[in-house]
């Protein structure tokens, strides 16, 4: 297997069963920088797929197949060792930490304190949000919170992104902006991304393959 072929996120005949009922079966490869959109009505098991990939599948479900990330089989790995970043519908910035502390929390531990603070400030500056660092996350607007939560996720240096309807809580004016921001960041960093949504517009903008389950 050559290096270029193994890069990306591979769902190798992944089938999930809820007791005896098979929810779906997916065989797909998401290359670096690509977005795979999974669509389906609520209750179809879209989020269950993300739970499997990130390692949080509830014990009531069973599965067959394998999940490979950059050529490594992560199907059985504990969640904290998978390097798969999750973005939820809510931004989930920790209300007991400042914006900067939320970002420091995600940054891997290398380098001294100053160096790490530098990195966080640079990440904020790169998206023109350096003035938000000292703020209480609860005082940010919905759009700002979403963007900060993505930056937090990216600072943790994930090797893949899983987006669980991350735009559905935003109002339609903001939605487009935040969506463009997320996709361009994923593209820039060449991250394989799975997007779960029920919004056609999200799927269109993502530009990659669309699977309906």
């Amino acid at each position, binding site marked *: 297997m050559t290096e270029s072929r193994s890069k990306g996120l591979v769902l190798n005949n992944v089938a999930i069963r809820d007791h005896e009922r098979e929810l779906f079966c997916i065989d797909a490869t998401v290359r670096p920088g690509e977005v795979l959109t999974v669509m389906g009505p609520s209750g179809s098991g879209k989020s269950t797929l993300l739970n499997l990939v990130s390692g949080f599948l509830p014990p009531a479900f069973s599965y067959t197949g394998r999940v490979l990330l950059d050529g490594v089989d992560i199907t059985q790995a504990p969640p*904290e060792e998978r390097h798969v*970043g999750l973005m*939820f519908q*809510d931004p989930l910035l*920790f*209300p007991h930490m400042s914006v900067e502390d939320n970002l*420091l*929390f995600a940054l*891997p531990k*290398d380098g001294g304190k100053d160096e790490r603070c530098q990195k966080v400030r640079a990440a904020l500056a790169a998206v023109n949000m350096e003035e938000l660092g000292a703020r209480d996350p609860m005082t940010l607007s919905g759009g700002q919170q979403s963007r900060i939560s993505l930056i937090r996720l990216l600072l943790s240096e994930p090797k893949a992104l899983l987006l669980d309807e991350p735009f559905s809580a935003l109002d339609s004016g903001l939605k487009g902006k935040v969506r463009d921001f997320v996709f361009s960041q994923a593209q820039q960093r060449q991250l394989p991304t799975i997007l779960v949504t029920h919004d056609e517009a999200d799927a269109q903008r993502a530009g990659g393959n669309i699977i309906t389950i």
Partner: protein
Amino acid sequence: MGTNTIRKSWGLPFWLAPVSMIAVLTLPLLAGFAGVLLPAFGYFPSLGGISFTFEYLFAVTEKPGFWHSLHLSLWIGLATTFLSLVLVAGFFAANWGSPTFLRIQRFISPLMSVPHAAVAFGLAFLIAPSGWIMRLCSPWATGFDRPPDWLIVNDPMGYALLLGLILKEVPFLFLVGLSASSQINVDERLKLARSIGYGRMWGWMITVFPSLYKLMRLPVIAVIAYSTSVVDMAIILGPNFPAMLPVQLLRWMNDPELEMRFIAAAGAVWQLGATLFAVLIWWLGEKIIGCAFRRAAIHGNRLAKDGWMRGGVSGLMLILVTISVLSFVILFLWSIAGFWRFPNTLPDQFSLMRWMANAGMLIDPTANALLIAVLSTGIALVMSLGCLENEYRHNIEFTPGALRVLYLPLLVPQIAFLFGISTLLVRFGWDGQLAPVVFAHLLFVLPYVFLSVAAPFRQFDLRYLRVAAALGVNQNKAFFTVRLPLLLKPILLATALGMAVSIAQYLPTLMIGAGRVETITTEAVALAAGGDRRLIGIYAMVQALLPAIGFVAAAFAPKFLYPNKRYFAS
């Protein structure tokens, strides 16, 4: 045409509920403080004290062992609170959402309902030099064929008491933690932390615990207040020479020499100070640990390899649950034990003789305990439901300030203000009566009943009431015929909890009843000095079984009252 479909509501005075509730919770405390502070400063006209003086506040400190007693209270109180909280938080961190968590959780509510005194006796029977653990290990492991001469129970540093208190406070904080967890998005926070590489425990500690602790703060302070001033468990398990300050206080309060009343009142003021000081130390500790946590949280350490730690914490919790269950078993064994020689694991024969011989003696204290429990819980329920309905009708938000009033009786050392109340009762000739004892119990029953019934009451599906209104049923009728029946399950559960709290009360019964209102709990604690294990086993079993019967009845009654109704089936 349809003019009589809406009858005028007959205006039940629901607004009385919050007013009387605040009065019931605050007036006795104020009276109690007055009754303690005045004599402490020398003012007690009927004993000839008519001038104010600091003399007694100093005099009490010269009593032998005073400073040691004070120190014991502080250390036991703070150590109990700290270790219980660490254990509960550690267990939540290690196991939240896992099968282990659910397995342990099943034991917690029943453990919570066992009265303090019964837990203390059970533990004493387990760990004493002639206790069950020693018997199980003797003589094959220890070589003992007679009990060693060790001071395990009533040890001078209070380790046995500390363990007993932890056995009681861990289930309490566990349940508090559960209810707080339901108010924040624990699962999502944990997922987020773990998906960026954090270990389960450390992830929980820095993303969940700070928010959780905010919600648990009042109950934690209640644990400090309780364990710095505990009396019943301290009599059974605690050090004796000198005893913890509250036990020492109780002795002074019962001293026949009237001069000692001033000393006792002054001691109660010191007790208040000790509890306050413990809370102050805790508050400082909170600041320091909070600061350390905030620093550690942004270092980026993932601490992903926490398997050994998780195993360790879960193991400790398992040991604690096992001790609790064994304590209960050993109480039962002693209550039916015939001849039981030391290293033998089990009695030579079992007999119900002592049960039969004491049945007559058990009836009165049990009936008293039940009567007080029914009355205090009944009043607490009427007040709580009235208060909640009033809140709903007038769209009042329950403020954090109001919550503090509700917790007030749990945040103040019982012995300090109960002594004041009893002094006043003696003054008016109301001591030793049932009614004041019921109201004293109400102080401690009301917070639990209200908190346990409030959440389901507020989550009630209001559409049922709208349907009732649309059908022309007035508010009061809807309250009694729709809301209350549908809330039957939580109401029965709150009743069982209230009764369990009441049955477990030792100090309010003893002090307000002036020793003349005897319940199963006061009788059981009174047996502690005697050391007749079979008799203690019998009294403690009755004491522990009463609340248990209540909870079982509360669980099955809805199914029994509403057969064929799926709503009440699960």
